């Protein structure tokens, strides 16, 4: 039978983020992708912020004052959550790639999530104290 449609039956990158029908490892993958995109966006924002240094102390100080808004602080918390999760999950995947802990990858993911929560609480507390 001639195939009327050669294109695969896929929604492309949207299937990366669709949690329906996914299992534990799939959820880990989705969070990993979202944190990767978030951290990449943050990297560019960070470079913009550093660029303020080149515009003189007034520009930098006014940006720092702006950055103390609750919404920006919330964004910083998201960066911390994303950074901790992405880094620890990277260690999990690297271990798996060396054949270590593959049969316990779910438990390792739960560990990654647990450490992310603990790290988030510690950093969140320090951030509240600092402000």
């Amino acid at each position, binding site marked *: 039978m001639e195939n009327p449609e050669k294109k*695969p039956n896929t929604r492309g990158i949207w299937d990366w983020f669709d949690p329906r029908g996914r299992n534990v*490892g799939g959820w880990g*993958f989705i969070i990993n992708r979202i944190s990767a995109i978030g951290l990449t966006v943050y990297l560019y924002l960070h470079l913009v912020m550093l660029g303020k240094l080149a515009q003189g102390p007034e520009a930098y100080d006014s940006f720092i004052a702006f950055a103390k808004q609750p919404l920006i602080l919330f964004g910083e918390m998201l960066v911390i959550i994303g950074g901790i999760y992405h880094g620890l999950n990277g260690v999990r995947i690297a271990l798996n790639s060396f054949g270590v802990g593959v049969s316990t990858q779910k438990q390792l993911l739960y560990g990654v999530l647990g450490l992310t929560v603990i790290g988030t609480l510690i950093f969140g507390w320090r951030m509240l104290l600092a402000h």
Partner: protein
Amino acid sequence: MSEEKWTVNFVVYRKKGEGEPHYQTFTLEVSPDEYVIDGVERIWAFHDRSLVFAHACHHSTCGACGMRVNGVEKLTCITRIRDVTTNGGTLRIEPLRNFPVISDLVVDMSRLYVGMDKVHAPAVHPLSMAPLEGGGIKPPRDVPMDDGKEYLRLADCIECGLCISACPIAGTAEDYLGPAVLAAAQLQGLNRAPDLTAIVDCVDGVWRCHSAYECTAVCPSNVDPGWRIMDLRRQVLAQRIRRWFGGA
């Protein structure tokens, strides 16, 4: 099978030729202990003879009846209706993802078969080339031996394609070999089949996998492709390290 009867709405993906895909609902009275493929066959037999779907053995050997049931890849001949819906509930039946749809619920699985050819995947392996992970599993006495007096076993993979459909990466990387193919390569082992190294140690080989383990979750045949891809990575890394130190 119990006498219990359920009313279930089968919401079936339909697509013919260049036409737009749509869903068609068929309400059936079924036994909850029947299998999903039984319902699909009944739709074809009594409601719409134009429904296109694939099936053959009805006992999870041929791998033909793989579909997505309520968004999850299932071998429909071993998926009891009771396990995936409720009385009065809905069963959304869709074709596998990441393959071109030929018609309705049938997809073109050339991608999988071409990959299997690429890694020269045989259906029968010497036992030493197909390690039974988990330890402690001994071959039964009636496992046949080849001429070299080595135990043989059938490969577990039934080439149903569920793993490729479930893989979130296979949808965006059409040249990715995919879980079943990489599992077939692992089954042979890079030490025994060194020509496979160049095929799997590349961007569309073991390194394309992003460790979602969806393949392992949906595999109806306990192949555990996720474990096998990671083991293949370990083999590739071991080869590289040996080469760095001047080994073969």
